[in-house]
């Protein structure tokens, strides 16, 4: 944070040590490291679903409906995690579901973060009247419970995974605006910003090169949070029938399809839920670790 002249050599020298420092603080939190490994496994599952999955997620084995997992009586190693009411392999569907959840998390978190940070930066640098208008608009969005607003948006736009992601990105975005604006306002009064202005740095340079890098820490933590929120919300929308549509192997949609079988076949309900819980938990653990490692104010608390 001290180097005001970002020369290439200085940056290269600074980078590995900063990464090492980050890993030092991050790895102090054992839960965070565990979360990180689970997340890596999740990414591998998402990326390699086509290779790892024994069957196609939509292939129906009509002679093998509701086969229990292999360790239970009646199960076979042909279908490790059993099959669903239509005879589709649960393991293959879960693996492909990881792909959807990962995709949803990445897209929603980056769209919300990109839009929110940009608006927050503008709001922080803008004259008071524009700042007030932007913040009031964010207040308005925040007045609606997120899931409800997403539900209504999807109802109007039509139920699909894309619309669900769009709706959730809109709903998550005000948090970034508030966060970015608050840290920008905190930085603006500091001397290094004043000196950059005196040195003749233009508005855009001050916004994106002088101030923004110093506001990134809380934003990165927020990205982790909205990644897991997005997975939860899209699964909830899928569960309500307003997200991904069957036969898409999205975890929430799978749960909705399995609802009527809850008392007969525990695995069709339990497994997609565990998948959601473990993924979200891993990302939240990482988020806690990121906060400890990146946010100097909260360090060692």
């Amino acid at each position, binding site marked *: 944070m001290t180097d005001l002249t970002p020369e290439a050599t200085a940056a290269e020298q600074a980078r590995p040590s900063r990464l090492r420092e980050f890993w030092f603080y991050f790895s102090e939190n054992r*839960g965070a490291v565990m979360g990180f490994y689970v997340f890596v496994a999740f990414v591998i599952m998402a990326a390699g679903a086509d290779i790892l999955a024994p069957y196609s997620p939509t292939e129906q084995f009509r002679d093998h409906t509701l086969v229990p997992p292999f360790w239970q009586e009646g199960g076979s190693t042909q279908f490790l995690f059993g099959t669903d009411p239509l005879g589709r392999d649960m393991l293959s569907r879960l693996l492909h579901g990881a792909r959807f959840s990962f995709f949803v998390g990445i897209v929603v978190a980056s769209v919300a973060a990109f839009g929110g940070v940009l608006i927050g930066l503008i709001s922080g640098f803008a004259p008071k009247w524009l700042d007030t208008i932007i913040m*009031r608009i964010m207040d*308005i969005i925040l007045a609606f419970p997120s*899931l409800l607003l997403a539900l209504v948006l999807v*109802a109007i736009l039509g139920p699909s995974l894309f619309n669900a992601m769009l709706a959730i990105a809109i709903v998550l975005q005000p948090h970034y605006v508030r966060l970015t604006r608050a840290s920008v306002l905190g930085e603006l009064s500091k001397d290094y910003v004043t000196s950059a202005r005196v040195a003749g740095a233009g508005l855009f340079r001050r916004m994106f090169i002088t101030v923004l890098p110093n506001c990134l820490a809380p934003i990165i933590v927020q990205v982790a949070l909205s990644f897991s929120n997005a997975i939860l919300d899209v699964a909830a929308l899928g569960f*309500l029938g307003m997200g991904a549509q069957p036969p898409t192997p999205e975890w929430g949609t799978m749960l909705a399809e399995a609802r009527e079988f809850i008392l007969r076949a525990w695995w069709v309900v339990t497994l997609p839920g565990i998948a959601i819980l473990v993924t*979200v938990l891993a990302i939240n653990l990482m988020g806690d670790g990121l906060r400890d490692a990146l946010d100097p104010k909260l360090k060692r608390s």
Partner: protein
Amino acid sequence: MIKFLLSRLLTFLPTFIGVTLISFAFIRVLPGDPIIVMAGERGMSEERYQELVAELGYDRPVLVQYWEYLGGVIQGDLGDSFVTKRPVWDEFFALFPATLELSACAMTLAILIGLPAGVIAAVYRGKFFDRALMSTALIGYSMPIFWWALLLIIVFSGNLQWTPVSGRIDLLYYFDDVTGFMLIDSILSGQKGAFISAVRHLILPTIVLATVPLAVIARQTRSAMLEVLSEDYIRTAKAKGLGPARINGMHAMRNALIPVITVIGLSVGTLLAGAILTETIFSWPGIGKWMVDSIFRRDYPVVQGGLLLIALMVMIVNLIVDVLYGFINPKIRKQ
């Protein structure tokens, strides 16, 4: 103080207008003709269509329509449901007690468990108890509550047969609404077993709805307590020879409560969002289920009115929390 109150009210007004604009825009500006939706699959004649357009005022300029909508909102007129033909306002307040009862029970549970858990975790920081509590809290915070509800149904309603699967009370009992709160009405009815039945119906939905707020409150209480415990005045209290119960209970907790109260107030929105899922799963006849059903039935006036009323409720609670916060903490007022 009056200046502070006025400034808060002044920010309330534009947000209120914005919220009405959004709920207005949902029907009039976005695609999909509500009249055709209202006609359903049977369709309607061209004359009847024109008649309805005139009746609902869709032939007038959008600004005029919005002005009349706003006037209606202020007088409590949110239009009639397409499906039941009853005023949206009446429907909302007929169902609201059910949601309020569930939310109040959930919030009480969350505070009763979350607050002490957070305090204990902070006092025993780093010990086994702290780790166990905080791991549980993180799991609760990450929980997809719709799945959690299904799990509880499998175990407690399916395998153990302890609790009913849905509704607010057994069909055996019938009595008129007095307050709209089943717990109170069942006692007032004087029917044997009615109260027990109402409680049994409340248990699972309350646990499900309380899960996320409980985790949030426990985590927030812990970090607020930790911050306060490192303050100088706590050391002074220790040096004076006060016992741990008095230090933690009287000195630390009272100050730690300030941010926690804010979190509790702000989780009203979360609670309402959670109520959508919880009520749908347990067929709880409240606002959340009503909204979801209306969305599926394309009952636009209900969606519009419900959205507005829920947003208003969140805004009012936030305003109250804001004002209370300024009342408790003079530093905020002076800003």
